[in-house]
């Protein structure tokens, strides 16, 4: 598409973060496909650095300057940020809000930037992918883009804590009973399945400190998802995805159980419903083979 065709489309700086390019490029691939078709223009952000979240536990001020540096660079471009990782989105949103409200802190942070060409002014917004889909594309447009309704497919979701928490800093959806990802899933025609403790954390942030607890948390969620009869679990976070998908065989061995629950990134699910061939959505990169579920969902929609 040429620039002129796209000029009226919403434009966002794409904040890739660390985990997605490191291990979860399937999420990026599917997101680019889907957003392109939905008329969202993504602008690359080659100058970005880590959002700061991974080192917040050891130096909060370092987190603040790392996050602020990203925000400042987006301000220079005059563009809002979309982050695919809820950790990045949540961190950038919280710091953006804090620096907009707290003049003293803003002055301090800008003091660190004084010898550089950047300055925090507070002129942009940050959104997570789910928020962008709901607010800048809209459920109706998504429904309109669905070419093959995934009717008959039963899916559950694990949203990831930082999409909605902490409520005060993030300010999106209801963390106790989030509805927006549910609406996005239902827009594909799939049947949304409730399960016990669906908003509970996957435990990913303590990998490297105590992996066993993470695997126990993830295993419990997989048990609940299976009990609820879901055929797939939908995520919108690279860390949650690694926990449930990459680690699923490890969990199965550790607890001597079989789950075989495919873990799809939401843009993969939406992409299938929008008619993208599965090879364009990087479904092959998933650790838990989704082939059976995908072929079943595509057969079923023909019956509908």
């Amino acid at each position, binding site marked *: 598409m040429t620039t002129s065709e796209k000029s009226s489309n919403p434009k966002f700086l794409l904040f890739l973060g660390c985990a997605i390019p490191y291990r979860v490029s399937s999420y990026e691939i599917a997101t680019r496909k889907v957003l392109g078709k939905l008329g969202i223009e993504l602008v690359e952000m080659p100058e970005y650095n880590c959002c700061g979240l991974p080192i917040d536990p050891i130096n909060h001020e*370092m987190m603040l300057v790392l996050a602020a540096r990203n925000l400042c660079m987006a301000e220079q471009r005059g563009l809002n940020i979309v982050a695919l990782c809820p950790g990045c989105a949540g961190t950038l949103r919280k710091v953006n809000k804090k620096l907009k409200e707290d003049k003293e802190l803003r002055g301090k942070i800008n003091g660190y930037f004084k010898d550089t060409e950047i300055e925090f002014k507070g002129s942009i917004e940050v959104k997570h992918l789910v928020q962008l889909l709901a607010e800048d594309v809209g459920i109706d447009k998504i429904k309109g883009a669905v070419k093959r309704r995934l009717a008959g497919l039963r899916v559950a979701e694990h949203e990831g*804590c930082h999409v909605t928490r902490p409520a005060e800093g993030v300010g999106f959806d209801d963390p106790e009973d989030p509805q927006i990802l549910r609406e996005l899933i239902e827009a594909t025609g799939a049947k949304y399945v409730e399960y016990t403790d669906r908003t509970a954390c996957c435990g990913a942030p303590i990998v490297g400190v105590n992996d066993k607890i993470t695997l126990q948390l993830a295993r419990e969620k997989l048990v609940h998802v299976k009990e609820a009869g879901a055929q797939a679990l939908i995520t919108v976070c690279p860390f949650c995805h690694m926990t449930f998908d990459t680690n699923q065989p490890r969990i199965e061995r550790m607890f001597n159980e079989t789950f075989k629950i495919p873990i799809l990134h939401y843009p993969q699910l939406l992409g299938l419903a929008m008619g993208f061939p599965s090879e364009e959505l990087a479904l092959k990169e998933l650790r838990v083979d989704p082939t059976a579920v995908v072929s079943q969902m595509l057969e079923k929609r023909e019956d509908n």
Partner: protein
Amino acid sequence: MAGNRSGPSLKPSGKDTSKTLEIPSATNQSTQPPMPLQGVGGHLSERSAGDSMPTVSSPIQAHEFDLHFKYEIAKMHGGEKLKQCFQCGTCTSDCPVARFSDSYRPRQIIRMAQLGLKKRVLSSDTLWLCASCFTCTDRCPQDVEVASVIRILRNAAAEQGLLPSIFKELGSNILETGIAYRIPELRLKKREQIGLPPLPKGNAKAVVGLAKAVGFLKTLGRRGEP
């Protein structure tokens, strides 16, 4: 305390919230440690094994109370409401990690911070088990930002050199590459093969400059250049 809950029972069970200050750490779990601290390198294990440091469950001596500690925390961003905690236990009962750990109890960490048991809480291994899901913060009836208080305590522990090695690794990666992981060359090539835009080089120089300014090099135990 209940043992490892790895069996089929999924009920959140056996939470003993009556023993406020009994927090087993790696030092007093003589029988089957419930949480091997994988990745917690050197510092924490060595320090907590030393007998100069009080273990979290040993009897509290009067001289251990640092009466100013809670005011120090309350001055920090996120710690303002620490004194409002009345120990209801909502944080612990809603904590996903506490359900699978025999030692991690956010309520106890908050209480130790309030009492000024600075050395105990800062040298406690369990401080590093918070998954930062913010459920406790969102549900606290007293508006205590529990996860942020834990972050403040972790920052203070790290300042004393008490931090799991995973954080040093992530921090070093950020200084050297701008992001938290070192992406293998093969993966970068694969990106281009499948038509993804090349990844940013990162501005390590700018990041190092900021790290010096905020004392992050010191956090990582480095003096001068990274």
